[in-house]
């Protein structure tokens, strides 16, 4: 990565900007990586089935399905590795007045949601996530762009978090 002029101490601030020290950061369950990887494998297998069907088309150069399958397998390995880092990048911190949520490796983000602004707290879990025992907590404010969801929490932690958030939201509620 290039470091432009006058930027000596910056690399540290970059990381600090998205997960600053001194906050009570909580990580999400590593089971989330398992869930993502199962979804990934299902997706890749479906892709391979499509490639297999492609090869049945007459006049199809044999190289095409082979190249496509190779691409899919490389993607499998690469995304498999990235998922680990992606899951480790999730974090949330409950502070006195707001909740911090951070995530992302390539595209990073940090969301500060004041408790007084929360309108809904959703708990959701699809069939796969339920089977693995993880839940997603999603916060909604009056802004559609808020996008503060925390996946990969065990049901107990998620329910506890939801109840704390709801209680604090009620105490600090500020209308619109």
């Amino acid at each position, binding site marked *: 990565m290039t470091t432009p002029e006058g930027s000596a101490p910056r690399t540290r*601030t*970059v990381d600090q900007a998205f997960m600053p020290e001194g906050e009570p950061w909580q990580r999400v369950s590593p089971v989330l990586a398992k869930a993502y990887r199962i979804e990934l494998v299902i997706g890749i297998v479906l892709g391979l089935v499509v490639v297999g069907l492609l090869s049945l088309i007459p006049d199809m150069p044999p190289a095409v399905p082979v190249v496509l399958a190779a691409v899919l397998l490389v993607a499998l390995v690469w995304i498999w590795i990235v998922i680990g880092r992606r899951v480790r990048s999730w974090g949330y911190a409950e502070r006195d007045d707001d909740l911090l949520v951070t995530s992302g490796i390539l595209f990073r*983000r940090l969301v500060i949601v004041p408790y007084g602004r929360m309108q809904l707290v959703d708990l959701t879990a699809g069939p796969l996530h339920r089977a693995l025992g993880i839940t997603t907590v999603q916060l909604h404010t009056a802004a559609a762009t808020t996008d503060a969801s925390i996946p990969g929490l065990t049901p107990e932690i998620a329910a506890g978090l939801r109840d704390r958030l709801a209680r604090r939201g009620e105490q600090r509620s500020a209308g619109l």
Partner: protein
Amino acid sequence: MSERDPLSFEVLRPASGPDAQGRRRLHPLTPLIQGVRWLPAMIIAAITLPAQMELTVGAGMLLAAAAGVLIVAVLAVGWNYLQWQRMFFWFDEDGDLRVDSGVLQKQERRVQLSRLQSVDVLQPLLARLAGLAEVRIEVAGAGDSRQSLQFLTLAEANALRNEVIARSAGVRHDAEEAPEQLLAAVPAGDLVISLLLRAETFFLLLISIGVITITVLTAGSVGLLLLLLGGVPIFQVFNQFARYYDFQVADSPDGLRLRHGLLQRTRQTVPPGRVQAVGFVQPFLWRRKGWVRVRLNIAGVASGNQGSGDQSYTENVLLPVAPWPVALAIVARVLPGVDIPAVPLIAAPDRSRRRAWIQWRRLAVGWDDAVLVTRHGRVTEHWEVVPHARTQSVRVTQGPWERALGLASVHIDSTPGAVRPMALYRDAGEARDLAEAQAGRAAAARAQDRSLRWAAQQPAPVAPPSAADEPAEGLPAEATADHPDPSDRG
């Protein structure tokens, strides 16, 4: 209002009064107007479809088409009649608006007026000719939070509007309509020129010319349809003109009133304290004129669909075109005590050039005690102003290229709408500090803010003077006075 509408014949008398339970009905002509609305489209379809299928048009053909149109029209009016028959509205004991409706599926709705965001009185052309109007009430809430009542006579609609606003404000609901003061009017000439100077108009006209040229050159049996298609872009421009024609902004104690429209007249009322964010847009060609377009975010008014990825909204225009000073003066009514040019702006660092090589010089963010101001865009310049008390959440984002440069962007999440405040490509550490500080400022402002509950906290006064009670909310006059003018807008 009392002004005489030259297009309205106003032949209709108000519908019958409330029934035994105090419930009221809409005007009995409603189903007819709702049904007739589709007639032009049906006639066009009846004409173009046979032509498309290259059928020979004989007398029998015409008769069949006319009969088809007639049957569909009768069915539509009949269905609308059933809907009208089952539609009732009234105010309940708590002072909230209740609406019962539904033919096959019954719906009973209670519109909580304490959450009122805006009230519109609309007159689509047909309704306007008959002297009827639609009342559209927006309350804060997820999903479908809009209640539309169509149609009432204009006088009834205005009375209902006043009653809704008075009840939501907590004043006596039989209060007189609050007096108003005209703040600005957009001359038709300025509106035409401003529309012609927009890049999108240019492209739309180009498309129209292209389509029409091709049609003329290749003129075949599809000619009519293509000509219609070619007209669509021109129609878009005309539509903009028709929508914002005769735009007037007036101030009154119950909020800002916007009136506009050539064919469809719209009267919009925005109660005080409901504005979530204000955006200024200046297309490149407007710069020499010093013109600007002003848009608003109002909770509930924008969102069409539910769901978090919602990008759809209708543009809430406060002023379609106005000189900067006029725009600033009017925004000062919406955000009392805020002096936008006096807010000191901080430019993005020089290395943001590598991320945004056109607009980097225009990137800036600034704040004072009341609002945060962001600026971006080189060709079309955008300014966004969001009061601290209206900040929903704060986001810091960073893409790979920003990361390589040690930059990050701060987004202030506002309610869905055209205005999206963003401080782009700041130093990463600064972005983080800015987000943290903004969250703090928002929390402090929320704690002091009382305009949210102007309804609940003012039981007595008949016409709360909005201009007088707003600046008391943590906006000392000296807050903005000691800044030098940092504004370098051209």
